[in-house]
């Protein structure tokens, strides 16, 4: 099995040498996680797409500055964290209203089988509720939780990136999950 960091290193070198295919391939390994991070941070899909392009472009232009290929993921998510923070400074979170298809991440394949369709709809409803609960979390808790869940960054690295104590990060993540559990239950009882 090839060493992922060697793979990243070779792609970095190819990108530096001007290979236009190198960066998209680099992005393949993290794009799902990055997208998941963004759609759960912002409310509108269009905003998530804009941020995705913005972050990808920043990474594309500044990739030559990355010295350690093993840090590509955390470096990319550092850009994402800063971009999202700038986004919220420009556009404070307002409404949780959604329209069908316009909400970030609402598109989902529904299988033809009816049982699967029902199950998919239930799961979609569950995920829809979970996403709203995540967006109800305070900004800092949401950011740290999504860095662990979506970016899959180690808690130590999250702490280092954000300048926090490791125990603080652990506590924040656990507390966020507890809050989400309670919010999901309370939202369910009101239905």
């Amino acid at each position, binding site marked *: 099995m090839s060493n992922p960091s060697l793979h990243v290193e070779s792609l970095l070198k190819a990108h530096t040498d001007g290979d236009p295919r190198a960066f998209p391939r680099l992005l393949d390994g993290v794009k799902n996680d990055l997208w998941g991070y963004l759609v759960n941070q912002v409310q*509108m899909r269009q905003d998530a797409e804009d941020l*995705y392009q913005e972050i990808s*472009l920043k990474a594309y232009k500044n990739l030559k500055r990355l010295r350690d290929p093993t840090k590509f993921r955390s470096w990319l998510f550092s850009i994402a964290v800063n971009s999202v923070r700038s986004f919220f400074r420009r*556009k404070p979170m*307002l*409404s949780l209203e959604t329209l069908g298809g316009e909400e970030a991440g609402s598109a989902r394949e529904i299988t033809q089988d009816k049982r699967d369709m029902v199950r998919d709809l239930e799961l979609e409803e569950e995920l829809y509720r979970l996403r709203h609960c995540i967006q109800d979390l305070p900004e800092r808790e949401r950011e740290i939780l999504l860095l662990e869940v979506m970016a899959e960054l180690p808690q130590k690295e999250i702490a280092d990136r954000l300048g926090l104590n490791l125990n603080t990060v652990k506590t924040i993540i656990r507390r966020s999950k507890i809050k989400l559990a309670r*919010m*999901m239950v*309370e939202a369910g009882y009101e239905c």
Partner: protein
Amino acid sequence: MNAKLDLDHLERLLETMTPAEIRAQFGKALRTDPRLEEVLCRFEGMDGSLRALKSAERPPEFRAPQYSSVRAWLPWTLPLAAALLLVIFAGSRLLPLPEKAASVRVAPDREPEPQDRVDSITLTEELDRMELARSDDEKRPASAFADSEPPAPPSDQAEIEKKTVPKERARPRETLGDLAGGATGDDIDSLESTEPEESALVEAALRPPPKSKERRSQNQPRQNILPQDPEVDRATAGNETDAIKQEGFRAASPAAPLKDKASDRDAAASSTREPSPLVEKELVVEEDRQERADSPRKSSPVSVAEEAAGQPARGVRLAGAKAQPDVRRVERAPLHPKTWLDAFREAWDAGDTAMVRMLFATDVSISWPLFGPSTLDRATLDRRWRKLMEAPRPPIHFELVSSGAAGAVVRWQVLSQSSVAGNTNPGGLVRLGFDGQGRCNLAAVPR
């Protein structure tokens, strides 16, 4: 242990205990409220739910920028443009100076021809010498000019100009003093001390500037040297007694607003004089500065309050139209209870969740029958509001009963026989409290 358990207590327990430990210790208490066990189940499955959330998303395609040969010089575009702007800006300030400096003259009454300018400078020099000579021997013929030293050769012209520059720089004080009807410079006295025996030519050249409209209309060349004066005065800590000059020179520094106002001011300029662009600009800048000093008083109390509170520009949407989810309108938060009520009613009518979130503080406590019997926090209010918006909503009437520093008492009435939150034809009094940003942080039935 079978102590009483509620959701808040369960949250605290989960921070330090696993769900299994909680079940072991609080088994019986968990059965008193089915939500407690469900919270434990949700917490246990949260990691899986979050992973499912992650895998459900499909990212868009990355669009790499399309570069061309233009890219090679693009990084230079911005610095070049900035340098060009600087040059243009500096040039617009500097370019007139040589002309105005060239038009420096002693005689105030007319714009001199180039040869006249040389002659006038020469005359001044000659007069000075004549003054000195007269004071020595007091024998100066009337046609002293004819017998005086020959005019300075052109090669000395620069020196002559240098010598006369201090006098010329002093002249604007006289000019501004005349505009103000006030003080005059020392050089006026020196010029006016010409003896009657001087030739008519010298007298005409040295005639003191008339203090009239005629003088003002002819001041353009003199005023052309005004731009030098701010630097000179600032450098030499010059005359501060002249009010207009003081204001004009101080206002001369911010150059950017000048260009926008100058054209407007030109149209309104007095016809009795032809003020130089720079004097006009100085006055305009002074007015602009005054306007800026006044502007905080004219701004809305909301913006002042928000800025004073150090908060970013956030607020509520006061538009009456139905909420558009993809529009993020940020307007000023209302301060007065009346405007808050208007905004709340609009949010109710429009089903605007965004408005509701902005009307209520994050630490709000709501015990308002409109939303049900229980006390709500902001998060619960938001969920309850969304549920209410799914059903047809009757209009609500608000009447401000009283308002003060402690908040406001409002009489509310649903204008319909339909039920809201389980109440038929609900209404009553509610006491609203507001934080410094005009958000409601308390809603309770007054005792």
